């Protein structure tokens, strides 16, 4: 799959996940300046293998987490917000992989919060950004080759 095709799949999957499971609609406006952010990385194995990274502004992360959990933003802990962002990254990654993987079964690794991700700096990564009411999300999907063997 070429990089433009991959970016199209990444955009479609991201918007479907945000709308259907997190009740968030992307806006067409400009992206806000980077503020305090949360970064999540998800490794995956299969054919292909690689990593997905998600960077979301802190206010947007809290708002998305509140909508997903059906709670008020003010009662959420930092841990809950982080866990929801890990779930968001996990669902987007699995959704993309279901459309780009070969017949090999893929395996998602554990999503984890991190202070930065090399995926955002990879020149081969497909990127997609989403403007939201109160922030933005940037997603990078980097495919590595050759095929990784699935771990036991």
């Amino acid at each position: 799959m070429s990089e433009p095709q991959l970016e199209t799949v990444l955009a479609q999957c991201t918007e479907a996940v945000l709308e259907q499971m997190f009740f968030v609609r992307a806006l067409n406006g400009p992206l806000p300046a980077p503020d305090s952010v949360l970064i999540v990385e998800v490794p995956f194995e299969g054919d292909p293998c690689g990593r997905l990274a998600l960077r979301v502004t802190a206010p947007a992360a809290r708002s998305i987490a509140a909508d997903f959990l059906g709670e008020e933003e003010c009662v959420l802990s930092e841990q809950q917000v982080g866990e929801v962002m890990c779930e968001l990254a996990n669902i987007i990654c699995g959704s993309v992989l279901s459309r780009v993987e070969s017949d090999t079964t893929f395996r998602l690794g554990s999503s984890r919060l991190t202070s930065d991700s090399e995926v955002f700096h990879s020149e081969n990564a497909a990127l997609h950004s989403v403007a939201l009411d109160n922030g933005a999300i940037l997603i990078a999907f980097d495919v590595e080759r050759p095929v990784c063997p699935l771990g036991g």
Partner: protein
Amino acid sequence: MTGCLEASNGIEALQILGKEWVDAILSDINMPGMDGEEFLRQLKTDELLRAIPVVIISTDSTDHRIERMLALGARGYVTKPFRPETLRETLERTLGVPCE
């Protein structure tokens, strides 16, 4: 349905099922410790637990994965992302009763 018990992986789920009876199980596939596939395999070897209907909820929408989980005994398969009504319909079909 009147309640929901949570487990973070297959091992925890089997521990809970050793003490509590449930009407249905919703299970992801990608989980640490024991994944959904192994959980389903072990559940189906247990004389008491094998009758509990299992619905898989996963981001993996590939045909071969869905076929494999259904072949292992899953009664339903919902792919993420999904709308809430999709899960409700699948549960109602699986249980044969309306879910409120």
